[in-house]
């Protein structure tokens, strides 16, 4: 596929043409805050901050998504034509055949919801796109275990036009976990900023189709522009620190499950859940039924492992009763349980959780410390402590002394 060029001043025209065929979602600044929003003509796309507050996962995995609407009503057959007052006074007097058919009956309506408008997300970063790939494994029927029709319908209707990170932030660590500022995983077309505009590469058929739909705004890239894009990519990759090596992390997290240091690490966490809601790959949700009078809906809504209700059982017992138990889960899920199941990580290294956490809990530091073998002294002490005698997580997570 030919490599194209989009002049900076042609960006609105490009998005405008896309918007004729699909909803366009892009990072836009409102009241000083950059978030992915449905783009409307005339709005500036904000690429300078690098990362919007939240990843664009909200457009595929909705924060609140209605599964179905339901309702019931008492229907009174018209054929009865009878004496309503008498029926209400004595509904069981059914010896007369004419009255018998007039007994009101209940109808239940169930209306499934499933809409998935075509959309193009522009201006996400390679780490954001990778977050979708990681969620796909969970929602997309990996090994035939589970297939989520709502997620997949939206995912299929979505095209991801990512922008290379020319100026990574100090909180970025995508290269440490197999990605990069020009990473292609999950990306349908990649836009790299060079002098005067973007070098545009289609990476999938979806990406090619999107570029074809807005072809009038594009030209062929020159060799010089393509070379410049290559330099931007290499230079960006070199700017990113590698805070830890992946080897051994999974096993060490397993071995450290009952380690007291989790409590120390969690001290400054306020157990809010911000980190999970800004993350491109956290995918937990809960399901609610809400009934008002005789109609209602069943919807799912994002939930997170810091919420004490997340693991509370019907009996009232909570296997993760303490903040530190819940705290441990987030990191263990991303670097141990998920990798065990899907053989990849559940983190793309975007750093959003670091910079948006109210107390700036640093996932790099947690993984570095808790993903390393326990110091000999601490391990010895832990095995003597009565609270840490349980080998199974269920015991270790129970009420501690």
């Amino acid at each position, binding site marked *: 596929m030919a490599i194209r060029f989009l002049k900076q001043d042609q960006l609105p025209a490009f998005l405008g043409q896309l918007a004729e065929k699909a909803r366009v979602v892009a990072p836009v600044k*409102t*009241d*000083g*805050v950059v*978030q992915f929003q449905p783009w409307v003509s005339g709005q500036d796309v904000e690429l*300078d*901050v*690098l990362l919007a*507050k*939240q990843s664009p996962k909200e457009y595929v995995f909705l*924060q*609140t998504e209605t599964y179905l609407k339901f309702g019931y009503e008492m229907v009174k057959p018209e054929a009865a034509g009878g004496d309503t007052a008498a029926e209400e006074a004595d509904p069981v007097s059914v010896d007369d055949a004419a009255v018998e058919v007039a007994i009101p009956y209940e109808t239940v309506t169930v209306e499934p919801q499933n809409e998935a408008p075509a959309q193009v997300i522009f201006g996400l970063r390679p780490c954001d796109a990778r977050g979708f790939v990681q969620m796909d494994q969970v929602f997309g029927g990996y090994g035939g275990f589970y297939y989520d029709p709502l997620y997949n319908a939206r995912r299929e209707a979505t095209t991801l036009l990512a922008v290379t990170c020319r*100026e990574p*932030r*100090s*909180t970025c660590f995508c290269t440490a976990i197999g990605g990069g500022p020009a990473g292609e995983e999950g990306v349908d077309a990649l836009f790299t900023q060079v002098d005067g505009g973007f070098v545009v590469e289609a990476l999938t058929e979806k990406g090619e189709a999107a570029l074809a739909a807005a072809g009038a705004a594009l030209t062929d890239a020159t060799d010089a522009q393509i070379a410049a894009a290559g330099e931007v990519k290499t230079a960006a990759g070199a700017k990113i620190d590698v805070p830890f090596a992946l080897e051994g992390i999974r096993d060490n997290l397993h071995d450290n499950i009952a380690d007291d240091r989790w409590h*120390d690490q969690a*001290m*400054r966490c*306020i*157990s*809010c*859940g*911000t980190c999970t*809601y*800004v993350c491109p790959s956290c995918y937990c949700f*809960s399901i*609610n039924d*809400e009934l008002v009078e005789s109609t209602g809906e069943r*919807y799912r*809504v*994002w939930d997170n492992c810091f*919420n*004490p*209700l997340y693991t509370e059982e019907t009996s009232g017992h909570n296997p993760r009763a*303490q*903040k530190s138990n819940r705290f441990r889960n987030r990191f263990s899920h991303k670097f141990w349980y998920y990798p065990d199941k899907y053989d990849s990580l559940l983190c793309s290294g975007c750093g959003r959780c*670091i910079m*948006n956490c*109210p*107390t*700036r809990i*640093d996932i790099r*530091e947690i993984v570095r410390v808790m993903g390393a073998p326990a110091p000999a002294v601490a391990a010895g002490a832990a095995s003597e402590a009565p609270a840490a005698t349980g080998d199974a997580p269920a015991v270790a997570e129970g009420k*501690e*002394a």
Partner: protein
Amino acid sequence: MSRQDHIREFAAQALADGRVDYFIGWKQGYNSSEVVPAFVKDPADVDQLIWTPLCHHNLVTFIKRNMPDPADAKIGLCVKGCDSRTLVALLQEELVDKEKLYVVGVPCDGIVDRRKLEKEFADELVDIAFPERGRVVVTTGKGETREFAQDDVLLDVCGRCRYPNALYADDVAGPLEAEPDREESGPDWSDIADFENLSDDEKQAALERVYATCIRCFACVHVCPVCVCWDKCVNRSREPELVAQKVGAKENLLFQMIHMFHVAGRCTSCGACDRACPVEIPLYLLHRKMNKEIYDMFGFEPGTKLDEKPVFQLFDLATDHFGD
């Protein structure tokens, strides 16, 4: 001796004496433009404690946040003037035991609003330095450096601060800051004047607009030092489900109204909720409005007098009014 040196000395002493099990202060975050709460257990580690105009966290939040501390854990902590008010509010309500606390008051000349600085640059901030009192020097990732006057980039709450010195402390980190004449002038409510001038319909619309972007992360609630239900918050309860879990302008507003009523007469305007909100919702609007109503009605400023009863504990069913 700097305030920072005082803090380190007090912390080291209290840890060495066994007066506290751990000491809560502030330390540098992931780079030198960030400060985070620090929990120090070993006197040898007190050198990580710092005091700069970036120490915005209200550490009172953490007194109750670290179960399973043994019930008799003794905690040392630093409080600025505003933080001390939330501590006084909790002491008034007998929600914390002062025998188990060791409190170091830190006289404060105003905390810098990192978000105001962030908005001055396209690039990320990597260093914020304070070469001397009143000067703030900011450096970005690309190496751009700019200087600001501290007074120009303060948190809004600091701009109207009436209590720069701790109202409750066992020790004080250096000389006190000058205090405004509180007899002379009452609290400054100018921050909510625009909001108050709106009609009811406009207020409703304004609130729905600001809360429409709420992502229900509950950081505002969890960071609030006087929000004490924590793991049992009614806004999250599903049995009974009193507040819809779904995200939407009306649902979000209801959740915030509940938060406002639960901290009415208790909120000290510390601003922790505003700073914690990842999507920068002006949470002060509702809380400050409620604070003003309570001040106008009862002359009550939460957390200012240790021997005072909180206003909502004064309600007398027999006489149907508050206090005498």
